[in-house]
């Protein structure tokens, strides 16, 4: 059943290669199906695996479906579903999006290291295609090069893991005892390899170019794909390597937070500014994951979910504005609904009360204090301070500056979606359980290695 998540988009992608005009409805179909599949199997609360070709784990490739991968897949597919509702965004990228969807789902669900490499590479290649929209070729190319290097390093790490443990199955690898020096090599290489997709400093040079280059890329890459990538960070460093190498991640993540916010502060381009902000938020999440406890990881993904929803709204609105107006001053006077949702989303990003970001940020800080980590909260609050600066600046610019004569039609679907999502952010503030429950289950699943190993290696269910 779960393998449908990968199979259907893949299949439909190939179908739509032949009938190009069908790409848009097929993408919608794929998204709906995936959502249906996911909703049908709401929170498995146990580790289910789906073996491929009757190879019992640790042999062969298997898909793992537990709370963590379920929640990640849910978020990933949710955003694909939202994108599929907006035909003008999907325009001639239906195939790429379907492939990206398949790859992201595969990346999330797979229980095999090498398979995850394969999915990551497909993800990179399709993401590059998506990134090249609106003639953003050079930046897409840069992304490709960086993704390629990262892929090689990830592959290298996988091979090291294989030579050290003799297995590629994540559960099996996590059981094995690995010599300290190999572990260092493996985790470092994984950190670097994933760092590109997880937007860790200094491997995130591609972000501004890709996110700032068109209106589709940030909407989907900044939400679904980065969620998938950050899920893998949690899976590898939380479940498989038991927190080894977390120090590297922690340090890099803290630097990332500051660097991201500082770079966002000076940015004059709306999309790029929030691209950097998403760099910084990724830093927060990675640093939180590197803490390794189930609560910390749960909060990290809670924060990531809030951030993804907010970012989706922000990039949606920003993309619309940037490609319809030359001068952004005071545009929200003409698009009040877009403006209101944008403002709510940005305030959620900062963590003002009444919005979801408040819940996650404060919980994270509280959790850190209870872990006696005094540095990270300080860094985070400093970052938030910088964030306040540019968020307020953008809001003021977009709402209050003198407007120009340019006109554009109100995008009805996008506006409705943005409004609903930003109201969702308010709802999450009032009732954080909407996201928090799932995120905490995800955190538990990621941190609970024993259960994972047990689930993967001894129970065999389903199959294809």
């Amino acid at each position: 059943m779960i393998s449908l998540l990968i199979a259907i988009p893949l299949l439909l992608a190939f179908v739509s290669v032949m009938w190009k005009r069908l790409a848009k409805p097929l993408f919608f179909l794929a998204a709906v199906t995936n959502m249906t599949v996911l909703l049908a199997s709401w929170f498995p609360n146990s580790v289910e695996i789906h073996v491929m070709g009757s190879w019992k784990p640790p042999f062969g490739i298997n898909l793992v479906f537990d709370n963590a991968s379920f929640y990640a897949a849910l978020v990933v597919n949710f955003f694909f579903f939202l994108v599929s509702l907006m035909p003008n965004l999907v325009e001639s990228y239906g195939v790429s999006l379907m492939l990206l969807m398949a790859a992201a789902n595969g990346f999330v669900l797979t229980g095999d290291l090498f398979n995850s490499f394969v999915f990551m590479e497909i993800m990179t290649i399709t993401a590059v295609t998506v990134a090249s929209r609106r003639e953003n070729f050079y930046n897409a190319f840069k992304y490709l090069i960086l993704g390629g290097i990262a892929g090689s390093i990830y592959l290298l790490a996988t091979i090291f893991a294989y030579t050290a443990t003799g297995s590629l199955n994540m559960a099996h690898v996590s059981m094995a005892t690995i010599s300290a020096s190999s572990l260092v090599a493996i985790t470092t290489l994984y950190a670097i390899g994933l760092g590109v997709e997880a937007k860790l400093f200094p491997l995130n040079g591609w972000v501004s170019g890709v996110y700032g280059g068109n209106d589709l890329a940030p909407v989907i890459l900044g939400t679904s794909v980065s969620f998938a990538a950050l899920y893998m960070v949690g899976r590898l460093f939380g479940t498989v390597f038991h927190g080894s190498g977390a120090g590297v991640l922690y340090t890099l993540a803290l630097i990332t937070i500051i660097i991201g916010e500082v770079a966002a502060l000076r940015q004059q381009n709306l999309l790029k500014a929030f691209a950097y902000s998403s760099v910084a938020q990724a830093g927060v999440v990675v640093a939180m994951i590197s803490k390794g406890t189930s609560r910390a990881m749960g909060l990290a993904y809670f924060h990531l979910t809030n951030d993804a929803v907010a970012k989706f709204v922000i990039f949606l609105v920003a993309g619309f504005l940037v490609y319809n107006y030359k001068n952004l001053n005071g545009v929200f006077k003409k698009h009040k609904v877009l403006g209101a949702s944008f403002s709510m989303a940005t305030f959620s990003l900062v963590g003002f009360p009444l919005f979801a970001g408040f819940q996650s940020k404060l919980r994270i800080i509280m959790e850190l204090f209870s872990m006696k980590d005094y540095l990270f909260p300080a860094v985070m609050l400093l970052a938030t301070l910088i964030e306040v600066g540019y968020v307020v600046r953008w809001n003021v610019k977009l709402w209050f500056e003198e407007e120009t004569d340019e006109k554009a039609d109100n995008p009805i679907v996008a506006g409705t979606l943005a409004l609903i999502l930003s109201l969702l952010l308010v709802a999450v503030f009032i009732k954080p359980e909407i996201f928090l429950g799932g995120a905490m289950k995800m955190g538990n699943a990621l941190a609970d290695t024993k259960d994972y190993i047990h689930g993967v290696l001894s129970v065999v269910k389903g199959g294809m």
Partner: protein
Amino acid sequence: MALSTLLISLLVTSVVIYFISKVSWRAGAILNFLIGVFLISYVFALHIGVTSNLGTLFGQKLQLTWTHASYYFSAVSLLVIVSVMLFAIKWLDSQKYPAAFNMFILMMTAGSLGVFMAADLITLYIFWEIAVLSSMLIVPMGKKESRKAAVIYAVMSASGTYMYLYGAFLAFQRYGTLNISEIARHMVSDPSTGIKAAIFLLLASAGIAKSGIFPLHTWLRIAHGNAPDAFSAVLSGQLVKLGSYVLMITVAAIPSLRVFGNIPFYSGIPATNYFLIALGATSIIIGTLMAIKQDDMKMLIAFSSVANGGYILIGIGTMDPMGFEGGVLHVFNHAIAAAVIFMAFASVVYRTHTKKISELGGLIHKMPITFLAYLFAIISLAGIPPMSGFISKWMIYQALVRKGMFITAFIAFFGSIGSFLYVFRPLAGVFLGQLPKKYKDVKEVPPVMWIPMMTLVVISLVIGIWPFPVLQPIEGMRMDYGIAPTMRIADSSHWLIKGFSGSWNPVLVFNLFIIGFVIAYILYTMFPRPKKVDLLAPHKEEGAPINIYTGGEYIYTPELYHYNTKFYAGFERMYEKHPSWEKVLEMLAKFFHDLGEWVHGWFFRPSPSAYTFWVSLTILIVFWVRW
């Protein structure tokens, strides 16, 4: 109605008000005003000690309680806000975004009330941010510079707020509770001075940022100076008082004398408090000196708010019964005075469209009621009897002299005399003197705008004569915080205010005034009636010169014969080349900006080659570090 219901329904109502205002903003403004009046009556009817639950957040109960402090601060805030709401019914027609203004001002009211009611640090934080956020969105509705002002306001406020948050969680981590009174109890018995001091200063920094105390004062000038004119009254009269409230909470609700009794610095005042006092004193100096040289009248009063914030902090910081009451009473005085002053300025700007003192003059002939409101407000602000402003200054001086804090006292005196200087500058430049020709058709503002001003003035005057209704809740507050609970300062049966070094009778002082005026008036009427010199002659008759002493010269353009630029040139010259903290902060901002440029240039812009370089370098460094 429970407190929590009140606040939440206020927040919801504010959104409703927005849509009503979309239909008719005036209806929204009137509704706002009615809600404000209801809130005042509600606040006065509440009993001390009422508590209410707001819900739970991360397993912590969010609680609201109604204390003497909440009563006092809410009442003061609402007085200011309701006046501005009434003022806005007419004033809003000069504004571009009346609907949003109506919504945010109500939201801000809810936020401020929530801050005053909060029983724990997180509730306080939540409502604090609501108040900041909604006020931050009103600020950029003003003129061009106000956009930048909003950003600076938000960042400065946030810098304080996040330090506060850090402090709150530090306290939570150490004491396992966020409830203010419980934290206070734990802190008394906590032996570690360093952490206590850290918590204390971090919590106080929110108040420091908000009430414009020295290192974080620069936002006041730009935000108060450029916000929509009537809203400056709320900013300076009410929002700044949120900061004073937090300072009071940190200094008094956490009994700093007992908590830091082991580090006395001077005259029984702990070093932590003394640090705050030093900051307050610095603010007084900066605020006064900068206010004296401002040409923009709103910025002038903004700097005066810095100075007065310093007074409040000094008063509360001493933790002396007199000083504490003086500081808290000063909250009331400054709130009323600043609100009236800013409303008067808003009226002036409403009619003349400029806030530069050097472009105005002689408006007394056209706007006498506005002038009177301004006059009485500055009498209160400068701390001259019989307005209420004097009482608080007197109390603060009592405390300073009693403690023998002569340098602080010196600074307080300096600020007080300096305040004569700066409040006089707009009085002379804007209202008195010669009326420029372009304003010859200016009219007095309509009653809807002057009634709130005059109401506040009357309140201030009445409190100046009979201060006991305000002093009672303050005494209650003092009892709550256990500052010399046996001492009585307000003696209403003998009409006396008693200090450590003597007392005075405000009613008597007022009566002396009346007697003095009566005698003066009798003398005035006894002697020949004056012939009127018409200062407006050049406006009425084409070609008529000014009929005042001009050294025999004929002058036909009144604005040429009006002294309002560089009013204190002789004094200003003495500190022309002063160091500017604002520039330091600007440098800091520029540093971050340049850092961003640098980061961008080095890590984000370059070609794939550089990316490769960074990836390789990172791998090498990480391996090097880990092996």
